[in-house]
């Protein structure tokens, strides 16, 4: 019994995504052999999509859809799982200057968990912030594999995780339908709800899962010249 979840993706509710949730689930079904994902977590930018209800789609496609948020702090971007009304009153998720330590501590106190994402990314990842600021306290897990990472970024994340003893997750950071599930997190436990997910992120066993295809070298193309 295990659950593989893409912990980081964006639907049309995020201003820079073009992916309807139904299309995501359709794609997961289509590509299940190479990306065996059981569920996704919609981590919309700077908001929590309160009104969304995906139960009909979950039933139709047999894929779990949970909701979370990606917020912006003085230590970079962070994924907030287990969002509730108290958190939304306490924090303005649209604020791009949230205090990371306060966020981590308070979200934990209110029953959720914060996972810094794409830590190897310039400006908005933990690695760069740790070069000039003290490490954050009470960080349980950090996103090691991100489907939008550029060369070297996941490696920097992995090095940070090893140095600080963090647990590691994976997520596609998908903004396009066809990129869903490229990276995910494999949990030992069976996860069916957001409460299950928060519990397992805090205390469970999990590891990042990489479903990105191996790239073949691309030979130099012929120049497209104006006629």
């Amino acid at each position, binding site marked *: 019994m295990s659950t593989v979840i893409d912990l980081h993706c964006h639907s049309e509710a995020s201003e*820079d995504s*073009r992916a*309807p949730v139904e*299309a995501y689930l*359709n*794609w997961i079904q*289509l*590509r299940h052999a190479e990306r065996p994902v059981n569920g996704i977590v919609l981590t919309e930018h700077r908001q929590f999509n309160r009104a969304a209800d995906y139960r009909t789609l979950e039933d139709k496609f047999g894929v779990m859809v949970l909701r979370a948020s990606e917020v912006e702090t003085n230590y970079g971007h962070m994924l907030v799982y287990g969002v509730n009304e108290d958190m939304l009153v306490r924090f303005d998720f649209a604020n791009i200057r949230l205090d990371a330590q306060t966020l981590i501590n308070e979200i934990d106190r209110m029953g959720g968990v914060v996972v810094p994402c794409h830590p190897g990314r310039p400006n908005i990842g933990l690695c760069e912030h740790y070069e000039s600021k003290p490490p954050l306290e009470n960080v349980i897990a950090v996103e090691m594999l991100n489907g*939008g990472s*550029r*060369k070297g970024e996941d490696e920097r994340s992995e090095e940070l995780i090893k140095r600080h003893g963090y647990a590691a997750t994976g997520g596609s950071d998908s*903004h*396009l*339908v*066809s*990129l869903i599930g490229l990276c995910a997190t494999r949990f030992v436990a069976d996860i069916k709800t957001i409460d299950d997910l928060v519990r397992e992120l805090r205390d469970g066993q999990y590891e990042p899962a990489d479903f990105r295809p191996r*790239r073949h*070298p*691309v*030979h*130099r*193309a*012929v*120049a*497209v*010249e*104006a006629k």
Partner: protein
Amino acid sequence: MKKFEDLHIGDTLGPLQLSVSRDQTRAYARAFLLDAPRFTDDEGARKEGLPGMILPGNLSLSLLTKLVTDWIGESGAKLMRLGTTYRQPVQPDETLTLQGFVTNANAADRSAEIDVWIETAEADRLVIGTATVQFPAAK
């Protein structure tokens, strides 16, 4: 000839490999009044913090549009919408791959949704986008 009935989610557009030369980049920029140094001159581009001369975003959009209209071919389908996000500068003389996937085919209105993107040889996605194509009524 492509028909709506023959579409499947997962169908591919491309991959098409190409490289846009400096001369072509300058020709586009000058023809359409985008003659800022970043589009015509490496030194001028570097002064703006760029790695060198870059393609205008409109040119990248044109390349992706062409990927879709070439795929449409003589089917009578129409490109209804194209949206792009420019994530990283696209540089001339770089080997680029343009590709796409059909991500939805809506039988009710005979439309198809397509993911499209431009990536480097290292699989960095420089430009991402989506397109909506409308196929004609069945005869």
